[in-house]
């Protein structure tokens, strides 16, 4: 009885802020402006502009997820060796920027990357050729990697810390070289962390509209931008919800992956 009472606030929270909004999205997504049932909003994903936006979003978020993984895995391995004290300090340094608002940090990248921005000013000071990646897909990937890297590092670090040194040593004793250890010991043992890191980077990257707006100069339309515009500018909530439902399929797939490989929740960052 007592425990049920304790759960009360969370149940209210989940119903009010997750279940009801989700049902509303489903309702809007499956109806037209007059409230009649339709699948048209979902089929809209096949339209050239929407399909292209989805494809681009998948491509960019996949690229940034891979880059995050390639950056985070070696880092987590290094940090693991450092032991609790120093390793956590580096982790702390990684998290610190997150104390600042995400929008501000992305805006800062805009200022850094601009034609007359800080990086180009520095490069020209050194008489080096400038860079011009602002308003390109490259800038968007950079923004995604920068913003979501901590979400990859944390679960990886978490899961790698739990690997017993003896396991690694045993592999080495049995004659495995570094790559064999990596492939047969490190990676399988850290799979829960890898999967949860991938989800935590891939899902927000796939749905983002802020990063593509700020760093893409409004020239690159991702599926997140399309949905955002349907809600805020065009006022077509039905279409926006329909496309959100399609997007949700990809999110569900990644959640199922986590469910499959991370049963004990070992790799979660929180």
């Amino acid at each position, binding site marked *: 009885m007592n425990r049920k009472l304790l759960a009360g606030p969370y149940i209210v929270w989940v119903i009010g802020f997750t279940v009801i909004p989700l049902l509303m999205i489903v309702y809007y997504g499956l109806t037209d402006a007059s409230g009649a049932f339709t699948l048209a909003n979902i089929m809209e994903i096949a339209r050239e502009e929407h399909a292209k936006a989805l494809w681009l979003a998948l491509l960019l978020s996949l690229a940034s997820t891979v880059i995050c993984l390639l950056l985070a895995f070696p880092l987590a391995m290094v940090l693991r060796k450092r032991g609790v004290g120093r390793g956590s300090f580096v982790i*702390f340094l990684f998290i610190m920027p*997150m104390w600042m608002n995400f929008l501000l940090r992305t805006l800062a990248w805009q200022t850094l990357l601009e034609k007359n921005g800080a990086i180009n000013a520095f490069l020209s000071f050194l008489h080096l050729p400038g860079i011009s990646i602002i308003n390109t897909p490259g800038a968007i990937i950079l923004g995604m990697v920068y913003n979501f890297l901590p979400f990859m590092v*944390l679960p990886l670090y978490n899961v790698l810390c739990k690997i017993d040194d003896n396991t690694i040593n045993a592999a080495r004793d049995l004659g495995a070289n570094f790559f064999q250890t990596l492939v047969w010991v490190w990676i399988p043992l850290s799979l829960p962390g890898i999967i949860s890191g991938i989800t935590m980077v891939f899902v927000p990257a796939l749905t983002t509209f802020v990063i593509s707006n700020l760093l893409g100069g409004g*020239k690159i*339309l991702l599926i997140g931008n399309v949905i955002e*515009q349907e809600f805020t*500018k*065009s006022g077509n909530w039905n279409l926006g919800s329909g496309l959100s439902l399609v997007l949700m399929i990809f999110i569900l797939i990644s959640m199922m992956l986590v469910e499959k490989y991370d049963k004990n929740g070992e790799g979660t960052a929180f």
Partner: protein
Amino acid sequence: MKKRFLSVSLAAVTAASAVLSGCSSSSGAGSAGEVYVYNWGEYIDEEVIDMFEEETGIKVIYDMFETNEEMYPIIEAGARVYDVVCPSDYMIQKMIDNNLLAEINFDNIPNYSQIDPEYIERSRAFDPENKYSVPYTWGTVGILYNTGMVAPEDVPTKWMDLWDEKFDGEILMQDSVRDAFMVALKALGYSMNSTDPDELAEARDLLIRQKPLVQAYVIDQVRDKMIGGEAAIGVIYSGEMLYIQEEVENLGLDYSLEYVIPEEGTNVWIDSWVIPANARNKENAEKWIDFLCRPDIAKMNFEYITYATPNKGAFDLLDEDLQNNKAVFPDVDSLNNCEVFSYLGEDVDMMYNEMWKEVKSK
């Protein structure tokens, strides 16, 4: 370990947002009731709110919106009931069409006489009988260019100059449907309120042709990017000009930024105060509007917002320099081909949105 760091950072973010959201309403005991005001962000000198509360004893509950489109569903759904709102021209027409507005009792607004008849006349484009709206600010949309980057012989005079390949990668376009289509439609010599699918398709193709030349589609950032010399030429609202001119002077830049009203004509926009049909404090709303029409108050707001004021009394109080600033107060002659946006109905709106999406996804 990590757990704690994360929760600390989350707490910091939540605390910060709590502080921010805490400042939306202002204090002051209200003995004469309340008025719920819904206005654009940074669209009033905040001292004016305090002065109004002090003089009338009416407590002001002040909220802000960022776009007309964001404001509309809130008023429509009655999610929050406001007494007085400040939308733009076409949105006012949409609200009138959908019976969301109350007729204003102009007997309660003696200072209405301060509004220049020119703008009351222009308001007929969206409020045909001048029954629902009181103009607050107005302005034009034009081309801003950097004198350091644009040679004197290339100075833009018409919208079509935004398709000049000399400006490859140096053009900033407005990232909003109607503004972008206004540029293309006017460049083609059509009305910016066109509802003809062929004309719109032509405008769309023109915008697609322009896209490779465009550096970025932005809204508010045109101002800062142009000041920073990021681009040579951009589409901008005239209301930004005073700020830009001051900033260029303050920073001691070696170029200046000049404003041109293209010869094909442009958009004259008007933001006006209206009273929603479901307002609970209509008389207080009228007192609010009247207060803002008072010349000294209108002058304070003009100096803060720097968007041109339709208030004759306030205009007369300004320095001569400002009165002659053509970027802020253009000659009436240059406005000959200009139009005011009107609401085109849901179907046409949808057509614009679809075509804009086609431009953006190319």
